[in-house]
């Protein structure tokens, strides 16, 4: 069911760790049993470091890692344009009936909204 790319993200996440962060936000989707928190260290509008914590289905964990990989080192103007399609491509997972992969994207948007 899952691609090698997906398996790498789910089984070997690099970004599930503790960092010194400047911004963070959490989303909880109880109907799915999912909870995702994104941590950002933003300096001069650049994502200098990023991390996540998650309790969720395999797709939520893989999507959280994918989001982190996609935004690490990017200017927040670019990060703002991150969407579901980018994350699905990074995960190599295109089954649209699974909407749960939006959880980390929503957490990221919530965290970015706090950036002045």
């Amino acid at each position, binding site marked *: 069911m899952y691609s090698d790319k997906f398996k790498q993200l*789910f*089984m070997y*996440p690099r970004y599930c760790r503790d960092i010194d962060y400047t911004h963070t936000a959490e989303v909880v989707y109880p109907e799915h*049993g999912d*909870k995702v928190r994104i941590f950002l260290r933003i300096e001069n509008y650049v994502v200098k470091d990023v991390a996540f914590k998650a*309790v969720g289905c*395999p797709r939520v964990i893989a999507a959280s890692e994918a989001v982190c990989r996609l935004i690490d080192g990017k200017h927040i103007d670019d990060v703002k344009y991150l969407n579901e399609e980018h994350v699905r491509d990074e995960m190599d997972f295109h089954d649209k009936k699974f909407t*749960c992969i939006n959880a980390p994207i929503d957490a990221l948007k919530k965290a970015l909204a706090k950036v002045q």
Partner: protein
Amino acid sequence: MRVYLDHAATTRVFDEVAQEMVKLFTQFYGNASSLHSHGYEAKRLYEEARTKVAKHLNVEPEEIYFTSGGTESDNIAIRGFLKANFPNGGHIITTQIEHPAVLEVARQLEREGYSVTYLKPTIDGYVTPDDFRRAIRKDTVLASIMWVNNETGVIQPIEEISKIAREHGIVLHSDAVQAIGKIKIDARLVDMLSASGHKFYAPKGCGFLYVSKRVKIEPIMYGGGHERGLRSGTENVPGAYAMALALEIIEKNYEAWSEKVKKLKEKILKVIEDIPDHHVNGSNTIFSHINVSFKNVLGETLATALDMNGISVSTASACSSHHGAGRSHVLEAMQLEDWMIDGAIRISLGYDNNEDELDYFVEVLSKEIDRLRKMS
């Protein structure tokens, strides 16, 4: 290493059974209803299989009807009995923890005007004889209570329920799909019983239904009048033969095999005991089943992580985006806490599992729970 721990979903066909089936496909392929030697040969093997299955259940061969599996057996038993005896309605007792092959039939019967009581299980996963007794009404005509629950492995109190049903003249059906081939049962405790071949090392697409001679039943589909008119359709001789042979093999090895599986289960439970924040769901479970939840790890996530390590277990609760998934109706009916429902995995052992596989499984299980919990 690949380890299969989902024997409650389906089993590998025994090698000997598969080899014998090839002979039936290629040498004894006659239509069992044909009036020539090829047909007679097939018929003889088919009836031999019926006699062996009947012997295994301690019933008469005329009381065994071959079907395509558990779902068909359940449908014929319930609908066929009502059609023959109570076509205009009546009250039925079943449980909230039945397989959909019974639950969905009951729901359809409600739409057709029958009245159904769905017994609630205890937190330990079984329905109580007292609740069964209390549910009986003057117009109760049928009860359908599973022998062993497919998700938790909890053995239901069929013996006590049977006594109560008999006292009140209520016909009792049992979906014994998870019991046949695993525990020794006396089918005479019930009036009708369903089984499925692929749950006991025979192939998919074959099953049987026991109907006591005392019970009047009518077909629910029509055709050539096979199986004494109850189940039309060309006889699946290889399937019937495979079921009989698989049961014979299990009977022959039962003591040694069941002891081995019991020990493997104990080994897993010992490792689970050392993992904090877990809950074993259900008590008085069959020797092959463990249903267990780990806090802060979703069952689907753990099952996927195990799968990526080559281990197959199942999860009853999964993201509702999955076909037919959502939360386990069984664990919900048991009124377990949310994390126990969302975190449950089912480990179901088979006669072919060995120590090496289990050593690998428990090592990976502990490692993955630790890894996934650190993510939270």
